């Protein structure tokens, strides 16, 4: 997962198995050897390259093409409208709401999940009996299907449902909201559900990062008289930097695409008013279900462009340090 950028991977220069036997062979046999090598290279990579190009790259190319037409999806697109679909999207207040909601989800997820995950990971990194069981339980929400999570919370949060009843029982009845129907509340409800679902992933990554910290370091800190907290603060946190940045990157890309949980949990009417729509739900609602294929593809291109630019900026400014570490041979 570190290796989002190719230069992050140690594999890069480490394995360069020079092919073939010592040089003292006849030329023709070496040529045969080279030819054989290329057959193997082509034979082994072609299936992966073909599937990848066909189903990842080609569709995005088509999206750009379709986005320039007004097209209901029947027959080939003929009504060329230039960039009109893009202009329309940015003039639609619902789409602008979706953009704002995506921004809330991106930054809300980082701000909520980061501290929670760090605290839980440090807690579960302590040695105590039953730790494995606790780890397993904490990961459960992350393993559940988005649909399952959506339906679960929809039932729990429905008006007069379990959450409301519990709040009343503990005397917080005045806090009860129309969690899924109030247009001002629903996006925050969505953020809560998404946080509940995905914080486990941040915890998994951070625990993996913590377990890579050599025990010698914490032992040395303990010998120097550092308290548990001082050890975490001055030894663990700095070493977790790369893991945290990678999690931030993955979380950001995921948040920009948020679809399933919102699609299932929030009522379509609320979504169509923009209160809980995201770029992805807006795209599927308009492109697939309303059959505005040209328009939907324009939204797809916008979603892709925003993700791509965000990813590049993130790599440029935040992952740079990790890349430098990899290049300067931090580990060797």
């Amino acid at each position, binding site marked *: 997962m570190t290796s989002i950028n190719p230069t992050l991977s140690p594999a890069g220069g480490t394995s360069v198995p020079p092919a073939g036997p010592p040089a003292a062979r006849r030329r023709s046999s070496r040529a045969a050897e080279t030819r054989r090598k290329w057959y193997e290279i082509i034979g082994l990579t072609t299936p992966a390259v073909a*599937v990848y190009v066909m189903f990842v790259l080609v569709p995005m190319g088509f999206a750009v093409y379709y986005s320039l037409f007004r097209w209901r999806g029947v027959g080939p697109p003929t009504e060329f409208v230039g960039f009109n679909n893009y202009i329309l999207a940015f003039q639609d207040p619902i789409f602008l709401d979706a953009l704002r909601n995506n921004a809330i989800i991106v930054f809300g997820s980082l701000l909520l999940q980061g501290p929670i995950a760090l605290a839980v990971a440090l807690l579960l990194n302590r040695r*105590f009996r039953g730790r494995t069981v*606790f780890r397993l339980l904490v990961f*459960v929400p992350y393993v559940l299907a988005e649909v399952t999570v959506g339906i679960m919370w929809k039932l729990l949060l429905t008006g007069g449902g379990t959450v409301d009843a519990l709040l009343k029982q503990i005397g917080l009845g005045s806090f009860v909201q129309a969690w899924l129907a109030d247009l001002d509340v629903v996006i925050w409800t969505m953020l809560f559900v998404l946080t509940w679902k995905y914080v486990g992933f941040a915890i998994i990554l951070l625990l993996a990062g913590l377990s890579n910290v050599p025990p010698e370091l914490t032992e040395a800190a303990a010998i120097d008289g550092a308290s548990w907290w001082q050890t975490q603060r001055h030894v663990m946190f700095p070493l977790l930097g790369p893991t945290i940045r*990678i999690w931030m990157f993955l979380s950001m890309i995921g948040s920009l695409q948020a679809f399933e949980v919102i699609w299932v949990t929030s009522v379509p009417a609320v979504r169509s008013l923009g209160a809980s729509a995201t770029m992805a739900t807006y795209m599927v609602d308009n492109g697939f279900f309303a059959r505005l*294929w040209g328009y939907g593809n324009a939204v797809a291109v916008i979603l892709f462009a925003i993700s791509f630019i965000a990813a590049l900026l993130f790599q440029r400014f935040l992952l740079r340090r990790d890349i430098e570490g990899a290049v300067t041979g931090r580990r060797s």
Partner: protein
Amino acid sequence: MTADAVRPPPTSRRPFSWGSPLTYGLALAVAAVSIAPVVYVIVGGFRTTPQIIADPAGLPDPWVWDNYARVLTRSDFWQQALNSAVIALGTTLAVVLLGVCAAFVLARYSFRGREALYTFFTLGLLFPSGAAILPLYLMLRDLNLINSYYAVILPQVAFSLPLTIVILRPFLAAVPRELEDAAAIDGAGRLGFLWRVMLPLSRPALVTVGVLAFVASWNAFLLPLLVLGDADLHTLPLGVQNFSSQYTSDTAGILAFTSLAMLPALLFFTFAEKQIVGGLQGAVKG
């Protein structure tokens, strides 16, 4: 992952302690927040809808098995479970097979354009599968693949390949050259080396990418929603969603259906958790 084998057993240094009551208190609180809703859904499946409406936060009284029995006797539940299993297994096998072949070349062959090819694959990590869903649908429609298992399997394989290759390549590259030379001396070609030495040695990494691909496929919703219009081909996530919107008043039935649908992923993860965390550990180390 490899480090697990090297690391001394934990007992050698500091034995597990019972921890402080504070540690346990906090850990219990965190665990409760994580699984309370899940427990609610499973237990709620043992209640009746009138019970749930009268007291949403109560316990079953009496426990009823009827909801689970109703779901388990539905033929479409089993059909959906079968569809999910076929699609998830097909995806997993194809991802691992194609991923190993490509990662093997990228790790063990030196040739012009190797790094370019690797970068080409890693670019896929930046392509959100959600953004491509509309043109993907149109393309699958033109290829006459809509309403077939392939319509889900092929795109899932394609979108899983970049991560698979990124995880597998360092693993395959780490196998010592000496083993390859030894295999060559024994008369094995490079393909023989891949099959007889590399695959057995990299089993932990293969399991990791396999589990990740399987769980992602088992839980997938958006792609099947668009390309599997035929109800006979619906997967469990689609089934759960349809059931819950079709029988909105049957809360207990929805809870039972949801519980049964999430069970396989939960069991699978429980068995494979060590593998996943271990595999990510290797990747984070990168």
